[in-house]
């Protein structure tokens, strides 16, 4: 090669448009019509400190799936409404719990993290009563700021698999209060699937999963047989 520099420059110049396309921000993949439709919803959500990333993600998802702008707006609006409702409820529950702990003294309530608001809204949308979500929120030990995102998702998944809400709520409340690590709690749905596949009724399947993971039992429940070590 006599003059590699001009050849390299030519190749680089030809490759730059492809590189520029790849580094385009995700906003560039969304039509202007979609942004026009959703911008008022996003602006209101931003002003209200709602989990804006989750709402924007739904916009990206809708655009990627070729959904009409108006439909995307409706879905994002519903999500924002759910977030607002659940976030306010969590804030209220947190304030009451903190106030109780300090014997009436005004204590700043722990603010729910965006992931917790999203998970709580998803739980409610999938049929978990809001009161059950709030009780789980209050079950956190004082001074512990661990995320409830995973416990909320696990609660939803357990109920979706047929376990009744009180039993699932009692178990997850115990899991949260005893600070069971998230990676252990996250195994519950999979363990439950194994027992359900063997024909075990959901309630008993949950007990089997609890034993298998050696989780603490909710008060009042039969501890059952210890797992073989």
């Amino acid at each position, binding site marked *: *090669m*006599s*003059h*590699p520099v*001009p*050849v*390299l420059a030519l*190749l*680089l110049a030809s*490759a*730059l448009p*492809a*590189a520029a396309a*790849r*580094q385009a921000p*995700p906003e560039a*993949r969304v039509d202007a019509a979609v942004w026009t439709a959703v911008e008022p919803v996003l602006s209101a959500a931003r002003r209200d400190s709602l989990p804006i*990333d*989750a709402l*924007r*993600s*739904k916009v*990206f*998802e*809708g*655009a*990627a*799936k070729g*959904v009409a702008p108006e*439909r*995307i707006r409706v*879905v994002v609006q*519903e*999500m924002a409404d759910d977030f607002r409702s659940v976030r306010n409820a969590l804030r209220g529950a947190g304030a009451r719990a903190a106030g109780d702990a300090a014997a009436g003294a005004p204590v700043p309530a722990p603010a729910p*993290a*965006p*992931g*917790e608001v*999203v*998970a709580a809204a*998803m739980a409610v949308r*999938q049929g978990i009563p809001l009161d059950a979500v709030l009780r789980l929120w209050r079950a956190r030990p004082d001074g512990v700021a661990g*995320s409830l*995102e*995973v416990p909320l*998702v*696990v609660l*939803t*998944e357990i109920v*979706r698999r047929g376990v009744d809400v009180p039993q699932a709520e009692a178990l997850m409340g115990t899991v949260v209060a005893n600070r069971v*690590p*998230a*990676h252990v709690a*996250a*195994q519950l*749905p*999979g363990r439950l699937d194994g027992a359900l596949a063997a024909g075990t009724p959901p309630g008993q399947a949950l007990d089997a999963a609890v034993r298998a993971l050696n989780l603490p039992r909710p008060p009042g429940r039969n501890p059952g047989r210890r797992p073989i070590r």
Partner: protein
Amino acid sequence: MSPARKGDTRREEARLRALLESVRAPEWAPPGFAARVMARVRREGRPAWRRALDWLLRPRAVRVTPAGALLAGAAAALVLWAAPWSGGPAQPGEGPAQAGAGTAQVVTRFVFVAPQAGSVHLTGDFVAWDQQGVPLDDARGNGVWMVDLPLDPGVYQYAFVVDGLEWSPDPLAVSQVDDGFGRQNSVVIVTQGA
């Protein structure tokens, strides 16, 4: 050699000898001539940037072997791929922030069985739902597509895109949820210490 030819040769030799003498004679120049020429060269010399520009703009024939062109292309592609501004394949974290950002990432395996597929891509909220998200690899050619992806701890929704067109949830996922648009998304819970 004939006398006439001999005469021609002598004349030619004399002419060449005279020419040589004139070439060998020292050139004369007036006193200070060399100094004046060099001063003028320095005064009128082009700046470095101009010489560089001329070098860049001067057309020249380039000879490239096919192997050389391939090497140069590979080098250019490597530079573009490795450059921080080039992006490369979509990476987790480009999309919306997730809970757990700032903590150690957890390598998460995604598997999708599609024997007839020509390509499978993983997309989800961890790559802002980019359809070209993360390509899965059918390394054994048996239709089992796989990718290991480092993710921050959190809960993510995702789907697979088969052959760039068909959206499919993950049958192996812990959960499927309604995406609000008439399809299903899969859910993955990423935790540390698993």
